[in-house]
């Protein structure tokens, strides 16, 4: 299991701060993304690779990044601060 945190538009649309994803670890960010899309299939666009950015342990991570069960994982929209 991996706890996935959400922010901004993703958090708001799902009405969830986080979700405990039932997935075998270790896995990759790509596996988590696929699993989130099947879990929230009406929100496929929100988790698409062109939109949602993934951070593992608070570092921006690409699709190949390996994730362990105790890692902190977050998916969020492109940033718009400043």
């Amino acid at each position, binding site marked *: 299991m991996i706890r996935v945190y959400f922010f901004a538009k993703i958090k708001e649309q799902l009405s969830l701060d986080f979700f405990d994803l039932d997935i075998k670890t270790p896995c990759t960010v790509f596996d988590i993304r696929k699993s989130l899309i099947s879990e929230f299939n009406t929100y496929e666009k929100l988790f698409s690779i062109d939109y949602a950015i993934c951070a593992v342990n608070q570092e921006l991570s690409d699709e190949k990044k390996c994730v362990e069960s105790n890692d902190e994982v977050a998916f969020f929209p492109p*940033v*718009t*601060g400043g």
Partner: protein
Amino acid sequence: MSNKTTTENIKISVQKSDFSIEKENLFLSKQAPETGAVVTFTGRVREFSEQPDVTGLFLEHYPGMTEKSLKRIIEQAQQRWDIQRISVIHRIGSLAVEDQIVFVGVSSAHREAAFEAARYIMDYLKTEAPFWKKEITRSGEHWVEAREKDQAARARWSTPD
């Protein structure tokens, strides 16, 4: 609520409360006879953004990652230019039109490093630090979309100048 990192020469703060440009100027130049240049940038909430009738903003962030991200951006700037002091402040929560949102201040011996580093920090902050803006308008609210021009501004720094 505020999350601050202050060392002798670096100040990072993600906070709900307003900030004083005067105070930051003092931090950047107090007892610094070696400082020849102080450059500061202040970002404000604008009335006309994606839609013309913005009345305010809501700023969300990723606690922990945001501060780490700002720290890394500052470290990269320090490697690139000879900088003396840096202050970066970003506000979160509800803000109204004309409120200050963000502050970046850099001091150095000469103006070139201070100007460039301040711009570099701002360009990276806009494209890497996990903050999200929601615009509040008279007709409703919407999350602001990321802009191509901000990515282009950051990309400038990755090509040798």
